[in-house]
């Protein structure tokens, strides 16, 4: 498998895991605390932001938070997966570009720009 395929596989599997966790969280919320799900969705679509409806239980909060983390991190996971390949092949151009893009997403993920403000 080429380096692109390696990146794609790592990133897409991570995104799929994140997606499944989000769906599990949603189903758990509808089963255990449907009022909170209803409150949140109606408030969101009604124009409210940060509606304090809560998750209900940890059974909902944990998969929801982890699912979002996995989904948003999927591209980073893919880029990290190709780094050893680039080092082994001594492909400097590829390594530089992977490092630049990874650093850019990390800056965004860590909120460095916001902290600097």
């Amino acid at each position: 498998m080429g380096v692109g395929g390696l990146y794609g596989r790592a990133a897409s599997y991570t995104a799929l895991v994140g997606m499944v966790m989000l769906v599990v969280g949603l189903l758990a919320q509808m089963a255990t605390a449907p009022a909170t799900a209803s409150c949140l969705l109606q408030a969101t679509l009604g124009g409210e932001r940060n509606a304090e409806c809560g998750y209900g239980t940890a059974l909902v909060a944990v998969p929801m938070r982890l699912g979002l983390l996995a989904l948003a991190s999927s591209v980073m996971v893919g880029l990290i997966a190709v780094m050893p390949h680039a080092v082994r092949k001594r492909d400097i151009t590829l390594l530089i570009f992977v490092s630049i893009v990874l650093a850019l997403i990390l800056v965004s993920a860590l909120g460095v720009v916001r902290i600097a403000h």
Partner: protein
Amino acid sequence: MEPLLFVPLLFAASIAIGLLGSLAGVGGGVIFTPLFLAFTAADPDVVRSTGLALAMTTSVIAGARYLAAGLANFRIVLFASSFMAPAAIMGAYMGLYVTAAFPQGAALVRLSLGAIMFLIVVLLTVRRVEWPEVPESDGLARRLGFPSSYWEPSLRRTVRYNVRNTLQASAFLAAVGLISGLFGLGGGWALVPVYNLVMSLPLKVAVGCSVATLAVGDAAGLWVYVNSGAVVEQLIAIVVPGVMIGAAVGSRIALRIRARAMRYIVIGVMVVSAVQLLVRGAEELWA
């Protein structure tokens, strides 16, 4: 409304968006964000973050197939991402700033997105070139190892391709990233013409590179929204799988229906959304 009714309704709407987008050859994000901003009262930041999550997830999964098949050039994807990602981050910050700092911020977002939608409609109608003829790659493209090849089943041979205008394309790529982060749109509608008509990549490679690049740019923009608390996980959990199911069904039935007719329907939906965005934005601005 009860969640047992509310969730399936939203899920069904997402399937319809995915189906329509797939049949017309556009991403779900470019239909979802304008429709929700134009016709619902939902917070613009939440709609844009959901649009970005939608575009990113579908691009990550579809991009993996293009990369594995050699239809997306990973070096070009990384080069493009290094311009698109910082621009998408800037765009996302600008979008959040506009809605937070100005009382009429949401109206400004709606108005400018309405105008952008007309540009998208124009770009969707631009004719693309299946196999652009480029005798030689430019110097930068050669140094970065962009010229490559892919197996073309319709020709039963390997097609070699060269790349030109690498530096000029970087400005377009940054502009697409900015718009993508600012409005929470996928950028396939602009990336495919940039890759195909500016860099002269074969159409299939342009589509593959576009899908894979979008995932990186949108991931960078999405994190800004995550950090600002503008993401509602429940909305993503309903909309993204819905659009993905719709797109999967759409790709299966696309061969059996008239694609051109579907494309005109989607363009019609986009024009209606654009007009509604402009009207609503103007009303809110002068209210």
